């Protein structure tokens, strides 16, 4: 087989590794479709466990991709998540890169 028939995967190493993890990717992909969502909604949509969701959301917050707000609805505590501007930009770039690579693979 000719050498140039192999797809160019040099961009694979440049993928944002913070997002390129299934749980964090799910959280960011779910939040890109809305302004904000609370903990219970994200649990429903992503199917993650409470501990996993909380831990991965904290990592995304540390990176500046996610904003976490804590408040009360009546006497019940409520945690609301929303993507920051840099989070939206980072996820857009990640998705575009992933699509380009999968396109090169013929997927």
């Amino acid at each position, binding site marked *: 087989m000719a050498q140039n028939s192999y797809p160019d995967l040099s961009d694979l190493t440049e993928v944002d590794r913070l997002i390129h993890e299934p749980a964090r990717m799910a959280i960011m992909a779910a939040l890109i479709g*809305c302004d904000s969502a609370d903990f219970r909604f994200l649990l*429903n949509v992503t199917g993650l466990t409470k501990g996993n969701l909380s831990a991965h959301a904290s990592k995304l917050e540390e990176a500046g991709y996610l904003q976490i707000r804590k408040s009360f609805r009546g006497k019940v505590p409520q945690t*609301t998540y929303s993507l920051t501007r840099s989070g939206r930009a980072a996820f857009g770039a990640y998705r575009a890169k992933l699509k380009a690579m999968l396109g090169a693979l013929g997927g």
Partner: protein
Amino acid sequence: MERVDWRKVAVAPEEYTRRTVRAFWEDGLWDFATGGALLLMGWWLDVLRQLMSFPIWTWPWPFRGPGQHFDTSWQVSAWSLAAVVGTAVYAWLAWRVVLWLKERWVAPHIGSVRHPFFLRLEPRFLFTYLGLDLASLALLSLLFDWLKGGPHFLSLTIATAFSAAYLALGHTYRLPRYVVLSVLGLLSSVALELNTYPASYQRGAMSAWEVDPFAGSPALACLTFAVLLVGSGVVGLLSVRRGEYGAE
């Protein structure tokens, strides 16, 4: 060795986004709001039909004054302006009422999610919608022109636009009740439009319930979809409150 299906991997991020966007319609509260808007639109169109019909036997409300009549062009302009203002006020009110109800009726069951006013829909939805709408409108207009001697353009535009929109939404965001709503709405509208018996070519339609053989009855198409949307809203709200969120 298990082979990885790269197409499925590529789709995964979009699937999570799709679930979030789907929550906008899933609880059925927007169906009630859209149904209400369609009822108002049907009434608005019926008043317009009365304004435009010739000869005008009785002036429709709100143009019926104590012996004072204005010319038709002034009335149509005022009525069109009322539609713009009415749409803005209704959208503003509906947005607040639906958000308030979502927090009280839906959030305790599936959690709370806030969508932007201008929802970001997938390009696939737009292409599906445009394709379905244009194809069904062209086909049905030709059919009505052949069967009834008139294209029934406005009523068919309303029926096909809503049918195509809900079919595209149901297909893109996996909302089966919207597929049913789309098919039932289009079939019911076409069946009602075909019944031009009470009206005649000479005097036209005398009320929203009569279908003009040439122009049809746009108000009837609005009413058909409004009734179906209320039914769809009840189904959506009950399924979410029963904990069937995300059931496909």
